[in-house]
């Protein structure tokens, strides 16, 4: 895949405190590299992620947004990720409906034990964003022109 050297994507990853943030920590302590384009924001639970945050990230120029939470059934708060799953399904469906490439959004369930999964997920996601290129559809078009 040809990689545009100029393009440095901005990628926001929302990670729940209990599983995915710990999974990211594990990826770190296992030295499992993934591109520096990914920046993690810690939230207590995936159910804390408001669609507003995701749209805000796109508005401010993010090229991809990924949300990670505990696996369904393993939520620290028992049910949070079930609500998050419905919310994100509907939001992503809407973005797709509006013509936003559906590769720019992703939800992945990563447990605290899955450092490897965290790292591979991020690598895949970044690669996907590189292949999609800069987010021209959602960003602040008028300011950039």
């Amino acid at each position, binding site marked *: 895949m040809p990689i545009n050297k100029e393009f440095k994507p901005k990628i926001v990853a929302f990670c729940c405190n209990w599983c995915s943030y710990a999974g990211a920590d594990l990826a770190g302590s296992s030295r499992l590299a993934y591109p520096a384009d990914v920046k993690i924001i810690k939230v207590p639970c995936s159910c804390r992620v408001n669609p*507003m945050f995701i749209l*805000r990230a796109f508005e401010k120029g993010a090229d991809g947004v990924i949300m990670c939470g505990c696996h369904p059934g393993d939520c620290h708060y028992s*049910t949070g990720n*079930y609500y998050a799953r419905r919310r994100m*399904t*509907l939001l992503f*469906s809407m973005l797709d409906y509006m013509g936003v490439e559906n590769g720019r959004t992703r939800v992945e369930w990563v447990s605290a034990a899955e450092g490897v999964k965290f790292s591979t997920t991020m690598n895949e996601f970044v690669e996907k964003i590189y292949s999609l290129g800069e987010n021209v559809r959602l960003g602040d*078009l008028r300011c950039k022109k």
Partner: protein
Amino acid sequence: MQKIVERAKELLADGTVNRVLGWKKGDMCFNPEPAFFETAEDLDENFVYGGFCGANLSKYMIDASKLEGKTLVLLKPCDTYSFNQLINEHRVDREKAYIIGVGCKGKLNIETIKQSGVKGILNITENGDMLNIETLYGNTEMKYSDALLERCHVCKGKEHKIYDELIGESQDTSDRERFAEVEKIEKMSPEEKFAFFQKELSKCIRCNACRNVCPACSCRKCVFDSTKFDSSQKANTDSFEEKMFHIIRAFHVAGRCTDCGECSRVCPQGIPLHLFNRKFIKDINEFYGEYQAGADVDAKGPLTEYTFGDCEPSIVKERG
């Protein structure tokens, strides 16, 4: 209409209700507006009920619930879904409402009439299945069923979901597939989809009419007016903001929207806003089972519920 006025007067006179929530004549025949009536004289003089009385009055009951005594409210079949949803959300007080379910044979869209080429409209009268239209340039006529609002083509049925008494006959005017328009967009390529919505949404002037008329969008203070999200209301400064506003607006009413179509009816720019709400309704039906907001007063709502086996968000990708 006369029957409604007579009954309203009786209920006012015997003290059952303190006021009547209905429609009053507008400056033109095609723009009656919601109004409270407190006297028999006011009713006789200003009350109107006809094909152009599309406004859904249930939202006004939020304020009316805070007033002294009961309010007589006139609800069309589809309006009763909104009223139920408001009861579900503790926004209206059932005890404060006396509901007369009024008959409806579909409501008219003046824009449709104008778009058919009729200009200089002076008056429109209903005559059975036909509309007699007086214009500056002479008289013409049009089939009633050709001038219906979009929502009436996908009518939810003639049954009132909640009422104290019924006056008048209703009919089911549905003659189109409810999700046909949504499906059409879903089949487009991402570029076409984007172009379609970009074109529609760039018309938005953020007048907030869609929000203010929506019976589900009834927050005391909208998030776009508050400081809670650093998104306080202002004109759109970038091309994304209108999208964000409309996505969030639709998301906030997802699972609560009864598909009453008021947003599209009132939009001064003619943006088909119901396409957002209906997309969420379609997804909810497909992913989590058929759900009609307002059909059941005690329903929990699809976004505050879950099942262990819900589909994953990646379904959006897999579905293509």
